[in-house]
């Protein structure tokens, strides 16, 4: 009886050795990674919303003062190329009159897609880490979704989705799950993660760049708003009124600096994503939970600032 049990135990061990050659990543590490990506998604799209609101407010002010406004530039034109295409002002790209806030909205949507794809990827890793025959359909579904998103994000950024730049993200899809499972069985989970590392780096760079573009936008909106304030302070004769103007300018400065700080933290959070992804690989080797301290630290730094972040002057 005892020898039968021993043979059965040996059989189980051999079977599990065939499924995976190394221990899975501690599940909490993947959960932490996914949860941090969810927060990064929320906070980065909120940052672009603040830039959107500020530009929209400055746009309305400019329209109010523009006596030569051509209403044709405000209306949509429906383009011949596609049944669903509409362009602000004109379908001719060179004559595009889209206000900046509309382009920011497009940019926010694209960034949301990128963030969601990274969340989907983290969910995929969680599922893949404990893959069995029951999870196969869900894995294929997730892989298909990630593949479509990666294709669309790269195309929107004007990049070709090649393996040199995006690693396994260039190949992931429904049919790729079989290969990934074989790779995991032969080389282990760390090898699978390493295949995705170039793509994590490339998408993280895109996220960081989006934050830098938004920072340039914030500085531009600030410049548009601050110059009339400086002139008004210079020309104001009444000391009480001048003090009010100075206080308004200081408030604008504080809001602007806070918004730039948030964007800097978000940019740093994106740039620490590849390191956090690398920590998952280390956790796999050591069996300890990945700390992800750098990524989590940047996200936490944004936390309280975000409660008060909104476009200046919208109180």
């Amino acid at each position, binding site marked *: 009886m005892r020898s039968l049990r021993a043979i059965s135990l040996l059989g189980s061990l051999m079977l599990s050795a065939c499924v995976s050659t190394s221990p899975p990543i501690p599940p909490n590490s993947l959960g932490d990674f996914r949860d941090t990506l969810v927060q990064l998604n929320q906070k980065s799209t909120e940052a672009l919303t603040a830039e959107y609101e500020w530009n929209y407010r400055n746009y309305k002010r400019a329209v109010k003062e523009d006596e030569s406004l051509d209403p044709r530039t405000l209306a949509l034109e429906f383009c011949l190329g596609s049944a669903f295409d509409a362009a602000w002002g004109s379908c001719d790209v060179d004559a595009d009159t889209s206000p900046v806030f509309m382009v920011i909205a*497009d940019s926010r949507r694209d960034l949301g897609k990128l963030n969601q794809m990274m969340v989907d990827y983290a969910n995929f890793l969680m599922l893949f880490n404990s893959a069995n025959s029951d999870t196969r359909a869900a894995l294929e579904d997730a892989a298909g979704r990630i593949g479509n998103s990666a294709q669309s994000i790269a195309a929107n*950024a004007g990049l070709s989705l090649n393996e040199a730049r995006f690693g396994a993200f260039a190949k992931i899809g429904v049919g790729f799950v079989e290969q990934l499972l074989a790779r995991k069985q032969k080389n282990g989970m760390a090898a699978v993660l390493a295949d995705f590392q170039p793509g994590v780096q490339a998408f993280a760079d895109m996220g960081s760049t989006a934050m*830098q*573009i938004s920072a*340039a*936008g914030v500085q*531009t909106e600030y*410049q*548009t708003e*601050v110059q009339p304030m400086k002139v008004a302070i210079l020309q104001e004769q009444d000391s009480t009124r001048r003090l009010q103007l100075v206080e308004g300018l200081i408030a604008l400065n504080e809001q602007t600096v806070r918004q730039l700080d948030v964007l800097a933290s978000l940019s740093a959070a994106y740039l620490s994503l590849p390191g956090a992804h690398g920590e998952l690989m280390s956790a796999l080797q050591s069996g300890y939970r990945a700390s992800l301290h750098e990524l989590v630290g940047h996200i936490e730094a944004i936390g309280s600032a975000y409660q008060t972040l909104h476009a200046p002057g919208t109180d």
Partner: protein
Amino acid sequence: MTQEEKLELVRFLIFLRGKLQNLSIELLILGEDPSKVDAAEKKLARQINKLRVNLMRSWQGSAANLMADLRKRNERAQRRLRELKDAQDRAGKIADILTDIDDGLSAVLQILP
């Protein structure tokens, strides 16, 4: 042209816009008419917004030579700006600065699609 180069160009133009805004205030303090500088600043602001849109939409172009040219123009304009306060021919100095700004903006316009 990389995204980093594009961002560097936009940041430089934002920096220049700030200098133009301060020049306008400087002229007001000196009792001079800042309207031409204000017009150039507004023109620059429009170009910055155009570049922002292009950055968000992944535009193409070549900025390396332009950046070197703009830096040279900026150094010249800054030197003229320092001389402005004590200049005998203040109107002439302002006209020189505006010429530099116009030339710089034309160079930026050339790389826009």
